């Protein structure tokens, strides 16, 4: 068949181009001779092989190479997550680069006294996707030993001994350009050795955890046509067909060693999650008043950083593994699949088993945790300490709460319920907020990234909306009818004191509070509540629905004021 094809070619010059070119070099764009079908050809040269090979007086490099070496002036690929450390290119890759790095004229061959003249004044590789250049930081690594040891150390690479025979390592076991490309055969496009629809070629080696269940690998969603094009370098029209190519480029990826399409981390997610491909516009939430500020930092996040984030930042990838994220239900929300965390005792867990462990990466033991919005009697910036199960009181995030009598809880909530950080910290337009927007603590019009309104200023007129956050679980009716604390209605409705004045919504660390003064999440807002004339500022738990206070609030001295 090939011979037949060549016979045809000899009679009439074929002009087939693009993916699906013939499986011979003759019909491919690597035929740079006058008969070549591609964009770069010579009008005067009729020999095809001569651009790379010569039968006599070749370079010392096999196979009968007819071009000089481009030297070793490359910026090699390196990455904090790569176990292999490629140096300067070696072997066959240097042969490819003798054209594709753009430093040597395409027509400069050893067997000719002068360069073969190319059409259109072309000298070196024209600017475009075929020009690799000498900076290899933006290209898939080459010229490194792809060994079984490497594969097992990496944990997400196939053992090279089990690769299909089309994927060839060189004689020394190194991965080269020729592992993915066959310069003589363009039947699959881009001279690939295997079709790359749905990233078949990539996943031959890369076995990413969770990928088989990821919507990034399975979704049939397509671009809605609103610019910008999420996949400018691709012909594929759906998420499933782009697969790895949704985010990654094998070459000329300006997103650096992660080979991402965009250099700013969040831009890679934005391409689809801006409402143009994915059903929900997550990125819009980042324009709200209170956000996880993914746009504030760039190139700070690193996958190898400690579980407890040191250089304060947040990127999408701090909470999501784009290879593993999927739909799913507790114990951990599927979109948080395969993400690291810090557990209740401060140890790193990989992957996190509960969503709060992911929050603890930034909101627990960090050296610069940020400022609390409310100054309190016991100020605590380490959220992990606030949720310890040994604390005098805490919202039941890491375990069942301590209070057996919470009459305000709205069914199905009960004293044995467990809640998540995201039950309070979520988008104001999420489904749980009654909206139609995406869930997740990306952004909210209510600070600090709260799903519903939670007014904290003194003298706030009570309403169902002012404390909508609390009233989601705690019945407004029950509270205003004083079902537990007999003076709730007086404080909240008549005195216009916010819930936040007395209650610390996370919890009170046992390192600061105690089970006499800090049950029921009591930890006073010191901008509203201050010591009484005796210099006392305290709540005293005196048993079920009973207690007393010593404090000054709204100009009224409380001295052993009990209920």
């Amino acid at each position, binding site marked *: 068949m*090939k*011979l037949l094809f*060549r016979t045809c*070619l*000899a009679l009439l010059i074929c002009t087939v181009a693009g993916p699906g070119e013939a499986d*011979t*070099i*003759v019909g491919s764009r690597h035929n740079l*001779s006058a*008969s070549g079908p591609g964009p770069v050809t010579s009008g005067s040269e*009729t*020999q*095809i*092989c*001569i651009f790379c*090979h010569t*039968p*006599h*007086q*070749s*370079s*010392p490099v*096999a*196979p*009968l190479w007819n071009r000089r070496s481009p030297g070793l002036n490359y910026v090699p690929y390196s990455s904090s997550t790569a176990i292999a450390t490629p140096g300067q290119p070696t072997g066959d890759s240097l042969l490819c680069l003798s054209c594709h790095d753009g430093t040597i004229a395409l027509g400069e061959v050893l067997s000719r006294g002068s360069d073969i003249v190319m059409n259109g004044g072309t000298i070196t590789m024209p600017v475009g996707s075929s020009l690799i250049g000498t900076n290899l930081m933006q290209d898939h690594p080459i010229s490194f030993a792809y060994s079984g040891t490497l594969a097992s150390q990496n944990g997400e690479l196939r053992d090279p001994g089990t690769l299909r025979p089309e994927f060839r390592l*060189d*004689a020394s076991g190194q991965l080269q350009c020729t592992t993915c490309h066959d310069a*003589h*055969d363009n039947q699959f496009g881009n001279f690939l050795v295997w079709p790359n629809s749905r990233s078949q070629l990539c996943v031959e080696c890369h076995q990413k955890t969770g990928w088989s269940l990821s919507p990034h690998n399975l979704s049939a969603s397509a671009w809605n046509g609103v610019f910008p094009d999420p996949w400018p370098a691709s012909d594929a029209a759906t998420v499933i067909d782009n697969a790895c190519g949704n985010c990654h480029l094998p070459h000329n990826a300006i997103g650096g060693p992660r080979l991402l399409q965009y250099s700013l981390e969040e831009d890679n997610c934005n391409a689809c999650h801006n409402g143009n491909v994915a059903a929900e516009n997550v990125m819009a939430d980042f324009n709200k008043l209170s956000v996880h500020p993914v746009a504030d930092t760039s190139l700070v996040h690193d996958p190898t950083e400690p579980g407890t984030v040191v250089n304060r930042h947040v990127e999408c990838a701090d909470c999501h593994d784009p290879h593993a994220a999927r739909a799913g239900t507790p114990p951990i929300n599927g979109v948080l699949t395969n993400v690291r965390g810090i557990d209740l005792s401060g140890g790193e867990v990989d992957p996190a088993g509960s969503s709060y462990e992911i929050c603890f990466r930034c909101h627990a033991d960090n050296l610069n945790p940020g400022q609390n919005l409310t100054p309190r009697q016991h100020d605590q910036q380490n959220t992990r300490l606030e949720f310890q199960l040994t604390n005098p009181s805490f919202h039941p995030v890491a375990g069942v709460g301590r209070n057996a009598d919470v009459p305000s809880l709205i069914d199905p909530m009960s004293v044995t319920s467990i809640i998540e950080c995201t039950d309070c910290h979520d988008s104001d337009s999420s489904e749980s907020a009654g909206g139609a927007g995406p869930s997740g603590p990306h952004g909210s019009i209510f600070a600090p990234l709260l799903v519903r309104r939670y007014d904290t200023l003194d003298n706030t007129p009570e309403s169902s909306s002012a404390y909508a956050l609390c009233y989601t679980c705690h019945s407004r009716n029950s509270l205003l009818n004083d079902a537990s604390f007999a003076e709730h209605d007086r404080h909240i409705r008549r005195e216009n004191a916010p819930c936040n004045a007395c209650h610390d919504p996370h919890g009170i660390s046992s390192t600061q509070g105690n089970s006499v003064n800090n049950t029921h999440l009591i930890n006073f807002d010191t901008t509203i509540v201050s010591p009484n004339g005796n210099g006392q500022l305290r709540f005293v738990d005196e048993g079920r629905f009973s207690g007393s206070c010593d404090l000054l609030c709204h100009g009224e001295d409380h001295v052993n004021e009990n209920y």
Partner: protein
Amino acid sequence: MTNKRTRLIAKSAAAPVALIFTLAVIAGTASAGTIAGSAHDFSSINNDGQICVNCHTPHSADTTVATAPLWNHDVTSTTFLLYSSPTMNSAPGQPTGSSVLCLSCHDGTVAVDSFGGNAGVDFIAPGDEHYIGTDLSDDHPISITYDSALANADPGLNDPSATTVTIGLGGDKTNTGTVSNLLLPADQVQCSSCHDVHNGFVPPAEPDLLVVSRTNSSICFTCHNK
């Protein structure tokens, strides 16, 4: 003889009538199908104007050379540096067969006029486009077995026993047959696989005595399935 005389006359630049032929010789496009006037017409370097004598003699030939008849030229005793490639499915040994005879001039160790008891003085020297030298690592492998089994092991090769080739297409001499039969003596790739020393089966105007045209790299694709 006409051709020989033409060249001699032309050398003295005395006969404009002969100039057309001379230019043809210089350009390497001898009359198709004849050694006379070809690159292997040695009449100009032999005092007696003989064409064939550098390689052949009708009498007292070297009977140790079996691959060419009535051999007359001194044979190279070089141990050659060999071609190798990690992607080859075979490795050549020292040159064998007729390739040794070609190299007896083209390796540069034996003079072109080294025959009949004369050491000779006319060497193919480095820098000459016809110089192969003793380092064959930069030359297409020769003296290797190329059969169906090799083609089966290397999909980049055509099956030589199933692939048809026409040599000397359009020349005075032409032949069609399998690659095995026409190009591979004893299933071996030799110099003669690509080059016809006598300028016999060479397409018109084809330089370097190639048996198949280099246009569109046809000579390469005769064997290489790329």
